[in-house]
């Protein structure tokens, strides 16, 4: 992999950029692979990368029905944080955040991690207690969280109207939280994985799994049958579809989650602001657009588009907190299909079939999990045993009842 650096850029600039190599190869599809990963979103690509890098697996393919990163990873609102309530989640997501913190250098690709701080607001005394409960949990998990008074909130984000319909009673901030650039994460992993020899095959949809006496042996695709020793599913909103092909059921429902951006303006918001109760979150991208999200459209769908009611609710919520934004214009609105589990935690690990692994149920918050998801799934695939960080996130919990409900603690989509 040819390094990206100031020097190489300068050299190429003089050379009219003629000498840059491809970011990732367009390889010939082989007949067999050691590991086939279905879905070239952030999770699939990161898994491939860590398989190659940490476990020296050579012969890996990532199969993607569209173009890489075209799923939720390329549609999300880019929030990264590790302020989770339950210890298992905190350990996992903080591992992820730490990997993010070194990712630009690890991948030699600037993923623009901007740790500008993530502020969560409380709008009543009751919510303030909830926030205290949450912040204490985070601190016991040895992750930082700072409670802010309404005045401190106002100082940090002067545009917030703390006396709005539901006055701000306070909040808490995780300073290491923030945003990064989703496309860069996808491209960075794709480029690095490709350099390790991973074959990323785009426009290749998996249509069936080949199964022999309880173990998978390969996949059928729109480009033919491919043999594989091990297969891992990382298809987000289509997890139920893939599980159906493997003849088991996952307790996941798929629904559209919207996001939207305003026209770009000069920097005016320097923190990611989230209100679980008014149900909105907003940040300003490096390009200057306000990036806005809220709750999911509450109906099942595979159609990647959202409806008007949620758009209106979402914007009204943002404006209630930020009246200064009324004259800004909304430029684009879109949706991704999110895969939601009953306890809103992901499903990672082994499946009822031998040699078949799954990483899904990422729902509204799997972007921040990409590095750790890839790292732990790679381990899991190699050892045929869940990585210690994800032991509790297996499918089995829906049978045993050992759920990990983060929705209870955070209750917002992001």
């Amino acid at each position, binding site marked *: 992999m040819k390094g*990206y*650096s100031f020097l*190489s850029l*300068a050299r190429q600039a003089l050379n009219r*950029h003629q000498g840059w190599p*491809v*970011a990732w190869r367009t390889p010939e599809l082989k007949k067999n692979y050691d590991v086939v990963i279905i879905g070239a979103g952030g999770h699939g690509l990161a898994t491939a990368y860590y398989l190659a890098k940490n476990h020296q697996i050579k012969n890996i393919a990532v199969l993607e029905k*569209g*173009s890489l*990163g075209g799923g939720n990873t390329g549609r999300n609102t880019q929030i990264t944080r590790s302020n989770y309530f339950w210890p298992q989640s905190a350990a996992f997501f903080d591992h992820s955040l730490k990997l993010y913190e070194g990712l*630009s*250098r690890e991948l030699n*690709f*600037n993923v*623009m*991690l*901007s*740790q500008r701080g993530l502020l969560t607001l409380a*709008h009543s005394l*009751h919510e303030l207690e909830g926030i*205290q*409960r949450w*912040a*204490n*949990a985070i601190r*016991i998990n040895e992750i930082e969280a700072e409670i802010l008074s309404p005045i401190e909130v106002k100082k940090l984000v002067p545009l917030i109207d703390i006396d*709005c*319909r539901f006055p701000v009673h306070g909040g808490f901030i995780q300073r290491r939280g923030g945003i990064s650039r989703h*496309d860069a994460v996808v*491209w960075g992993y794709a480029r690095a994985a490709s350099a390790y020899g991973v074959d990323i095959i*785009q426009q290749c949809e998996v249509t069936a799994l080949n199964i022999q006496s309880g173990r998978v042996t390969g996949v059928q695709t729109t480009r033919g049958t491919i043999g594989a020793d091990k297969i891992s599913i990382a298809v987000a909103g289509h997890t139920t579809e893939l599980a159906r092909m493997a003849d088991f059921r996952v307790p996941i429902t798929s629904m559209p989650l919207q996001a939207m951006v*305003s*026209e*770009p303006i*000069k*920097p*005016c918001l320097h923190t990611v602001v989230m209100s679980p109760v008014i149900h909105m979150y907003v940040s300003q991208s*490096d390009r*200057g657009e306000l990036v806005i999200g809220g709750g999911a459209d509450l109906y099942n769908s595979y159609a990647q588009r959202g*409806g*008007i009611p949620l758009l*209106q609710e979402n914007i*009204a*919520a943002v*404006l*209630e907190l930020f*009246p200064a*934004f*009324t*004259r*800004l*214009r909304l430029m*684009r609105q879109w949706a991704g299909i999110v895969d939601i589990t009953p*306890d809103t935690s992901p499903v990672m690990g082994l499946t009822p079939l031998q040699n078949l692994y799954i990483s899904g149920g990422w729902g509204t918050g799997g972007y921040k999990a990409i590095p750790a998801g890839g790292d732990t799934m790679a381990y899991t695939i190699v050892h045929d045993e869940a990585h210690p960080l994800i032991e509790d996130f297996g499918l089995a*919990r829906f049978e*045993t*009842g*050992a*759920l990990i409900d983060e929705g*209870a603690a955070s209750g917002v989509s992001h």
Partner: protein
Amino acid sequence: MTPSPTNRLTSGGRIDRTQPLSFRFNGKPLQGYSGDTIASALLANGIGTVNRSFKYHRPRGVMSAGVEETNALLTVSGGNGDIPVVRTTVRALVDGQLIKSPSGFPNVNFDLGRVLDFTHRFWAAGFYNKLFKWPSWRWYEGTVRRMAGLGKLPDGEDGNKYFHHNVHCDVLIVGAGPAGLAAALGCANSGARVLLVEQDHELGGSLLADGAQINAIDSDTWLSRTTSTLEDAANVTVMTSSTVSGYYDHNVLTITDRSTTGVVRFWKVRAKEVLLATGAFEQPLVFENNDRPGVMLANAAMTYVLRYAVKPAHVMVVATNNDTAYRVAFALHDNGVRVPAIVDSRENIAEEVSKEAGERGIPIMAGSVVLDTVGTKALTRVSVGRLSNDGRSTVDPTSVIACQGLAMSGGFNPNCSLYSQAGGSLRYDAQLACFVPDEEKACRQRVTVAGAANGKFSLADALTEGARAGSTVTGEAGFACSPAEVATSALGSYHLKAMRITPTGDTSRQWVDFAHDVTVADIELAVRENFVSVEHLKRYTTVGMAVDQGKTSNLNALTLLAELTDRSVEEVGTTTFRPPFMPVPMGAIAGPQHGDFYAPARLLPAHDWHVDHGAVFENYGPWKRPEYYATNGRDRETAIREEVLALRRSAGLFDGSPLGKIEITGPDAGEFLNRIYVNNALTLKPGRVRYGIMLSENGIVIDDGVFARLADDCYLVSTTTANADHITAWLEQWHQCEWPDLNLVISTVTSQWAVATLAGPNARTLLQEIESDIDFSVQALPHMTLTTGTFLGMHARVQRVSFSGEMSFEISVPALDGRQVMETLMNSGGDRITLIGIEALTILRTEKGYLHVGGDTDGMTNALDIGFGGIVARKKTDFVGKRSLLRGGDQRKDRRQFVGVEPLNDNEELESGAHFITSQREGRRSQGVVTSACFSPTLNRVIGLGLLEGGFARKGETVTVFDDGRTFDVRITDPTFYDPGGEKMNA
């Protein structure tokens, strides 16, 4: 070249010369006329450079006369703050307006930022992905952020008013150009409800700058006649200055309506049939320095001359690959603009146009393309080269033509944004070299496309197709209608050559996307690096992602991508268009939903009465409820303590009206509730009340409250205030989706009833003093029973339930009588009754150890964790969540269970939100949380409730608590601190 003082023509155009308007541009006073857009007024004053480009800070001038503008996006102050990114090409000029260029330091004419242009080689596509990794992005981010953004957040108050409207119609026609008008004419008087929506303030579209003949009259006259016909037709509603911005499922579209100054209306339209007559966007040509001020779209040049009576420049070269630009050249010429040449990439030019050019003495340079332009702030000359035989290069010699402007036409691309949003597919038409609606592939919505939006670029075709489509869709909507008669003799040839990109020159100076400063070289680089899917190309180079959403750049980018990757444009495909078509002010989307109207507060039936009694209100969900009563100048703490003590000593009156109340009626009401509640609902006798909990499928407690059997087939379910709506929906879901066979009706009656709760040892005595036919004695009305009767002459329902732990009567009367009940009770009770706010009640129930779902429970708390194990075990029949409670994980002894807590040290501040932690030795981790805590006035010490791992078996144990960095010890107790035997409650 110094721009001439005025480029205004002395006659013609649709401006009103009797109404001059003054405005300022970057401080300089200028003049325009009513009917001008800001852009036309700037051009009339000879302003060339209006802005600087986004990335390289190059001087830019007006490039279009429509919504597709990429350059003249300026900051405009018109009495409502400085509004950024105003498309001045469509915004009407208003007297006194202040127009500013958002970029340019120190000013738009001399910008130090231009250094980025001189060093442009470093800033090729994706440069930031390759740089800024050391020491970290944080070091660079601030600088990069400051450079982005088109203008500042408006300051000051927003004076606009925003409204929402909803409307249904049979036929929605989007766009009132020739096709839309022809369609609307046909449906006038068909009886169908027709809505014709046009984003311009005038109807006409391209006819506003045309001059052709329709039905043997000039188009201006035809237009004004048509306009009045439509305005007179009772079944047609015409909306101007209104942009259809989104096309959603079920034929619902949104409109941003700016037809009233100071008001923005956001419409939702549900249409039976939609006809999109949204026109087409002219596409730029790509050659070196094609972005200089003075270079504009040909059609725009014609619009400025004919509609606004403005010469974009005195000498203009016209460059084209099709016939339509000839009409532009003629219009320019006929209005006094010298056209030194028409540069046409086609070798053979149709007789009908070349002849006319000859008559005007305009030379045609066939088989030639523009190579480059020269001029710093404005054009001084362009160089033109002949194409080689294969069209892949140019041959010498190069000619140089002096000029001040360049009008370019790369042909048209249908405006298919709404069609694509509707789910329609597009196909590439190689002949027209653009994307048109694919009629082979059915669209999921009731939508038809006509006119230029459907690739019919000549006036004649657009009129005919519009008329036909109008009658067809009206027919589809169920109304008889024949096509309007429209005919034109206008020149209709197009003859496009699929060539927009000059094959030679420095590609890093050939602009594809003016708004984002994306050049051909950027696209070449993306392809070299394998960003060859449309999505990757778009995101890597940011082509088409600016505020214009690629209206003039996507097609060229896709064409280039196809060429560079040896694919057809069809294979390359396009990206999906997303709403909105044009950006919509966020205020309009939210409409009046802000301030008091954002989640409008729900008020108690006796709200004003509470105000009079010193209530201090707080938000509890949507409700405003008395937090406490600040009578006699008491502070919050004193008030709350006194309220608690008063209730325990004598009696307290609490307004419980917001409590969720749902009536379930029907023969299967009991069976239904028996499946919903953990508790047995069937064994409950009429007149009896039971406390119950509801679970999710996962066994998690989602709500609690009492339910009463009013009659054999009628139950009254009480829910927590916060969950009232959610539980109603939840019950409906179970009834409608899972058990539709059960015969019952669910109705919310929360706001039908006012509820006054009188509790305390004196409650009964007090009630007995009041005129009523109800027997309040313990024999007649023991705890957990219900009766009805008259109370003060009102119809009343009295329930014996208690949240405070004292003897308690919940008196429900029709909501309108709410005030009277409170008032009479208070007056008759005198000193013996005290008003109780929510905070006092919270303490009372904490003392009693009653849990609050959502506070003392969380999304992990199941029925067993709150001590319902016995009830669950006894209930033989199935209920929602039962299966989950059978799982091992749900039955573990170390789950977080409901307990009481008290600090070992009396002075310790125990607060809700603190965590029980394990010792350092075990490795510190949370083993539960304190969910409620307070100082108990009754017990005179601090108490709390919590969820603790294995809590049931740990009563008496000492556990360490962590709160905000502090740790201290507490003792685990039974949750019931007050009257564990329940004698007081049952009295």
